[in-house]
């Protein structure tokens, strides 16, 4: 085990996969010689050269389309879109091309492409640099969506995502870029399978499903609650699509209570999907399920407001307490 930062786990994943498979290339704005705006691609250009590590112009629609064309013809491109908000500029090649080509073309091609991007809030980046759009991508058949919350999951999920023969959208958390955690030592080929949730803390009173950086908030909330004798089970879905409902259902069957926490909007978000699936499955609940999310407003630049905006451990704990009160 070695301590690594979240962004360094990304660099390592890219490096290992590029080393392993020369069909893997990396493209995006400033991923090349400069080493990336968060230092997330540092050293890759020096090792793999200009042909395989390519700075693009600011042309997200065009270069994601190009990545799809490259994926159709023998490469396995990794594409960086710096901020998740800018993925709005390349929905067409992702949704109309990458997600559908295998199907439309009768299985003649696959699109082995991984697009990673930094999303979410907590750094006062303002309304156009803080969005969380997992729900959009998850709504599209043909795409897979991963959202790692720790360095080790970044490493394992990105590596698996690059090896996946489908287009994979990897949603990283800006706020976690500098966070550190244990990862397997260099030399270990660490893979985390797509579509497998991870129980980050066991508990029997309530199931807290937390996505992305909300995993940290959920764990803190669980600590607060534990002091009061409430044992929360914290589950990190890790993949949003496919979504590991098996793990979630098994947990809710035991706890009888479900609370979903994410920094994407509640309306039409992950919480809606998970709560609906649990209810459809007819799992008996001891209290109505809950979502803890930001209000239905853009993400404010204002630090004091953004602190209110994002679900906090206290707000999560408060919601759980209310679920445990006798009706």
């Amino acid at each position, binding site marked *: 085990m070695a301590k690594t930062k979240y962004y360094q786990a990304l660099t390592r994943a890219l490096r290992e996969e590029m080393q392993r498979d020369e069909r893997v290339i990396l493209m995006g704005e400033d991923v090349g010689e400069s080493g990336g705006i968060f230092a997330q691609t540092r050293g890759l250009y020096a090792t793999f050269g200009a042909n395989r590590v390519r700075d693009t112009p600011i042309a997200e629609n065009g270069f994601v389309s190009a990545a799809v*064309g490259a994926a159709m013809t023998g490469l396995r491109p990794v594409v960086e879109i710096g901020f998740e908000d800018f993925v709005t500029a390349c929905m067409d090649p992702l949704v109309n091309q990458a997600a559908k*080509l295998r199907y439309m073309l009768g299985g003649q091609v696959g699109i082995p492409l991984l697009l990673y991007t930094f999303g979410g809030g907590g750094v006062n980046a303002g309304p156009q640099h803080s969005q969380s759009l997992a729900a959009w991508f998850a709504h599209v058949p043909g795409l897979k969506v991963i959202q790692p919350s720790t360095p080790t999951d970044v490493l394992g999920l990105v590596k698996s995502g690059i090896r996946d023969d489908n287009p994979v959208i990897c949603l990283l958390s800006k706020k976690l870029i500098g966070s550190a955690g244990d990862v397997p030592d260099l030399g270990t080929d660490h893979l985390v399978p797509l579509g497998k949730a991870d129980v980050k803390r066991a508990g029997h009173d309530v199931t807290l499903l937390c996505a992305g950086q909300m995993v940290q908030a959920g764990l803190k909330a669980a600590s607060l609650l534990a002091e009061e004798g409430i044992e929360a089970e914290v589950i990190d879905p890790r993949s949003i699509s496919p979504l590991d409902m098996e793990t979630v259902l098994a947990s809710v069957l035991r706890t009888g209570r479900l609370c979903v926490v994410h920094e994407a909007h509640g309306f039409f978000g992950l919480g809606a999907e998970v709560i609906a699936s649990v209810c459809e499955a007819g799992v008996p609940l001891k209290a109505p399920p809950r979502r803890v999310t930001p209000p239905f407003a853009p993400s404010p630049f204002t630090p004091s407001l953004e602190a209110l905006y994002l679900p906090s451990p206290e707000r999560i704990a408060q919601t759980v307490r209310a679920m445990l009160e006798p009706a």
Partner: protein
Amino acid sequence: MKSRAFNVSVPGAQGAGISADVARRLFRTMCEIRRFEEVASERYKLGELPGFIHLSLGQEACAAGACATLERGDYITSTHRGHGHCLAKGADPARMMAELFAKAQGYGKGRGGSMHIADVAAGVLGANGIVGQSMGLGIGAALSLQVQGRNNVVIAFFGEGASGAGIAHEAMNMAAIWKLPIIFFCEANAFAELSPFGTHVSVPDVAQRAAAYGFPGITVDGEDVFAVYATVRQAVERARRGGGPALVEAKTFRWHGHYEGDPQNYKSDADHAKAQTFDPISLARQQAADVPGLKAHELDDIESKARGRIDAAAAWAAGLQSPPASALTEDVYAEA
């Protein structure tokens, strides 16, 4: 032969020396495209083809001339009006027809339809229903070739309507910066959907815009298959040698509506008249007289064989079965 050049000098096509073999091939391809589109139009009118289809009648010289310059390992990317391109690059008309008829034996297992015909093994990366994406996908294929060090090239087809899309600019700029082996081939067929050239392009010729990227741009007479061939061949050779992209614009004409069934009330009388006179196949017949070693009766023979091949393809396709219900959810994801 009319052809205007920007940034580059193009020798006349005749000057470039069209051999009898090439002429025969170009003529055959045009006849196959013509017949394919005629049959598609008829079958569509009969209600045998579902969805909607966009035909390239009148534009045969573009697909035929451009694709004849390519090798099998080269790629094309195409548009919603892609039948001609696919045929010219070597797709099988029978499997194409099967796709139009929504049959399991179609290139897309009948699930894609006219707008998604592809034969990746033949280098046909697909027709596409999203205007402009042929150019983005095209530079992606060219990027593959460059990264893999393959000595191949790409032709990305698009229309003058697509030239107004942002991706046209993004793709041409990247192709220029990265010196990719790609030819951007614009079929300026007088209309984009229901509106004329001037609604979409602020200058007389799309090819002018090549100067904005620093690579050659050429406008060529899209009625003249020999001119198209000679012009594209030059661009393809240059790209194959590592010379980077070029933009070729063919002035051509769409005989039919945007889609089959289009009432076309936006067309003037002159437009309707032009559809009677603008005919690359007739023109090629005339020009063929100048090609040494090519006999007039050969052309009749080629034409009737082409008809036969397409008619047989359609007859075969019409008789096939629809895909099974299981096909509905196949190929969404790769098998694990």
